[in-house]
């Protein structure tokens, strides 16, 4: 049985491609924790704006820093922030969605109005508000992106809880005297994990794109620390002279998103 599943997975081009891409990116990030070809913030005036070579896989930037090392570091930051965002967004969103969906009533009405209002508010704007009020930094970035992702999870979980609430198995558990909290977390939530999995994958991609976009605007991680978005915005003025400076970080962002998108698409088709 297990063997069969593996054969099925290997036959699906989306799952294979997604697995390979995501695997390579993760490998690059994990290796980056232990070893990087150069120190990502080390400047070298003698080797400015070099093209791709064996010495520098993606060339060097305008301060002679090795782009591949900076990409390794930057994708680590992006991944961490995306994971943090999803933990905050999915965690808080699930709790809000489950409680409002389960109890309903006035609390539900009020919470959903606030959630709708937040949902109407583009996530990039929310992040900009928080950053402009509390200053630029990765904590602010994490909190603002996390809050921005709460509404979508709250809505999805609420809808699913509403759907499950009147099903026979819930009624049955209720007759056996299961408490509300246990009902929500032990009986209902495990039954909606399929929906959760796909929205987490989509959310993860949106978080990567949002982080990259914000650091492109200059409100993400601050120099000299590398971040993929910031590298892109710095590289723009050298785009004709040194294309590898632009393409390196850009392609890594695309691959990061693409890997998870392929995995999501594969999982969706699986069902």
């Amino acid at each position, binding site marked *: 049985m297990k063997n069969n599943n593996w054969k099925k997975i290997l036959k699906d081009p989306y799952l294979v491609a997604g697995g390979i891409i995501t695997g390579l990116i993760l490998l690059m990030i994990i290796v980056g924790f232990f070893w990087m070809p150069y120190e990502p913030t080390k400047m070298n005036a003698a080797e400015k704006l070099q093209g791709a070579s064996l010495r520098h896989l993606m060339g060097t930037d305008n301060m002679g820093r090795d782009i591949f090392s900076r990409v390794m570091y930057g994708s680590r930051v992006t991944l961490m922030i995306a994971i943090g965002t999803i933990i905050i967004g999915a965690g808080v969103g699930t709790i809000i969605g489950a409680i409002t969906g389960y109890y309903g009533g006035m609390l539900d009405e009020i919470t959903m109005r606030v959630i709708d*209002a937040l949902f109407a508010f*583009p996530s990039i*704007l929310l992040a900009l508000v928080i950053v402009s009020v509390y200053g630029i930094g990765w904590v602010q970035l994490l909190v603002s992106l996390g809050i921005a992702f709460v509404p979508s999870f709250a809505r999805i979980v609420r809808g699913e809880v509403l759907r499950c609430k009147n099903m026979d198995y819930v009624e049955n558990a209720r007759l056996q005297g299961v408490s509300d909290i246990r009902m929500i977390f032990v009986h209902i939530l495990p039954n909606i994990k399929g929906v959760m999995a796909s929205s987490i994958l989509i959310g993860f991609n949106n978080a990567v794109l949002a982080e990259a976009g914000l650091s*492109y605007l200059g409100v993400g991680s601050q120099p000299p620390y590398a971040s993929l978005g910031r590298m*892109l915005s710095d590289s723009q003025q050298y785009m004709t002279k040194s294309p590898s400076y632009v393409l390196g970080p850009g392609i890594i*962002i695309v691959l990061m*998103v693409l890997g998870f998108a*392929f995995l999501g698409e594969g999982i969706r088709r699986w069902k």
Partner: protein
Amino acid sequence: MRYIIKKFFMTIITLVVVSFCVFLAFSVIPGDPALKKLGMEASPELVAQVREEMGLNDPLVVRYYRWISAFVKGDFGTSYSYNKPVMWLIAGKIPNTIILGIMAFLITVVVSIPLGIFTAKHENGVIDRVISVTNQIIMAIPPFFSGILISMIFAGVIRLFAPKGYVSYKDNVPGFLWYLLFPAVALALPKIAMTVKMLRGSVLDEAGKDYTRTAYSRGNRTNEVLYRHVLKNAMIPVITFLGMVLADMVAGSIVVEKVFDVPGVSTVLINSISNRDYPVVQTIIMGIATIVIVINLLVDIVYCVIDPRIRIDE
């Protein structure tokens, strides 16, 4: 009609909630606006007097009411850094942002609807498969990266336009539109991919339903069934989605304007954030949020006009 009125009131409530949140966010900022206005050496008595004049001692709700009623009348306050009305700062920039958003939206609609219908019609054909994979890839490219790629190719190699060579609409309208076309394409690309995917799925969903089979069994040809029956129903979710796309483009233009150096509202926004010029930030954020919320209301109304079922359901 009742449905529209209900939606209208809900929009008003949403606007009040959003505006209050924006107001609250900016009123908890550390630092005293009166002190900022007078400079650090001002005497405490003077600061207290100015605080009273600026109405900073009033309760939160009173200050909120004063701010929002002025906002509705078009009085957005005074910029800290330029000491000029906020409106004066952004008035010339608004057309750039709006035209960029509209162009990107039109490109999305014009390209994605025929493409979506085509891929659904030729489901699992070679072209459909190529487009599906291309869609996945395009969705993974953030607009600022596609924007840089577009300027590398079309400004650097083919030289269709000058990089960072924005032309003002006051000087040369065709030149202005031509320059904006490239950022608009960058903004539209991921949305095109999403819309094509969505329309394809929606058409295929409807094509599997009973009424489609009935239409076929009455001897209609594929095109007749597709355009007269299937598409009418398949477009409903797509229209909602396009409304969200339009709203998204207003916010998405913030990044793309920076890539192409278009002097739009977002340039002012980003500069004001780094200068801590809160009245400007507050106005622009509230303005964009208002546009997004109003677009959502319009989508609901359109939705209700084209799909009578919704009026009964609610």
